[in-house]
């Protein structure tokens, strides 16, 4: 059914829900599983290059830790996990990775809209749903208990 699954993981509770669902799907359908973490917060106007490097090192360390936890969970379930970290806009980068790698499913978390501006601009999940060329599963936090089975 799904041969290659890509899941966006940045360490939030919503993205962990998405990851756990992707892991279950991958185990049940024998799909190849990839995690992509997107570094979004590098300063655009830094006073010195060190400021950018410092932020990048901080994010690299953070994502290494997150992906390490993801690997442990995958190993427990006997699933081989591939990880990537990229820099840029989350929705754009996830869509690019999905297209380049010919994925047939993207799994992302649902974070909800905290304010009216987000309502108008749309969430990362909305943008992925609108532009993806493959199936997109938006995992709702209420499904956590289902995920952990």
């Amino acid at each position, binding site marked *: *059914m799904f041969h290659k699954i890509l899941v966006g993981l940045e360490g939030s509770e919503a993205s962990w829900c998405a990851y756990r*669902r992707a892991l*279950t*799907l991958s185990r*049940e*359908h024998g799909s190849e599983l990839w995690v992509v973490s997107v570094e979004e917060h590098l300063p655009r106007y830094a006073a010195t290059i060190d400021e950018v490097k410092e932020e990048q090192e901080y994010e690299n360390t953070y994502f290494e830790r997150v992906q390490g936890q993801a690997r442990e969970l995958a190993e427990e379930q006997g699933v081989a996990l591939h990880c990537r970290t990229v820099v840029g806009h989350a929705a754009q980068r996830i869509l690019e990775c999905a297209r380049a790698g*010919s994925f047939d499913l993207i799994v992302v978390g*649902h974070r*909800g*809209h905290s304010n009216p501006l987000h309502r*108008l601009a*749309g*969430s990362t*999940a*909305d943008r992925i*749903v*609108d532009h*993806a*060329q*493959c*199936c*997109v*599963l*938006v*995992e*709702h936090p*209420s*499904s956590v208990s*289902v995920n952990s*089975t």
Partner: protein
Amino acid sequence: MFRRILVGFDGSPGARRALHYALQLAVSSESLVWALAVKEPLPRYAARAAELLAESDVREHFERLENEARSEAAAAGVPLQAEAVQGHASQAIVEYARQVNADLIVIGQHGHGGVLDRMLGSTSDRVVDTASCSVLVVPSERHRS
């Protein structure tokens, strides 16, 4: 995995693909499936009377959809309940999913027609935003390579 799956089914190619995915998921998890068709409100201001379909035509159309979903499900060996309800597509799908306690909604992806749609969002956006369960959005055929 997913035990109670609701699929939005309006007979369009995207909805047929959504039904196909819902049935495939259901086969592997022995899930129950509901296929929901939504009768959207008739135009308020029609130029000609012919724009408003006769009630019998509408009924026939939705019966055809329900039968199509049932026969697809029977072929896949999946228990399916088909129903048509009145309302706005996204609201009706989300509401029905709550009623049947669905843990997954499967819908077809819809494109954006213009700036207004971009701001208001498509049916799939609204379902993703307001559903209280997970949502699988299946792309239209033109996107498939």
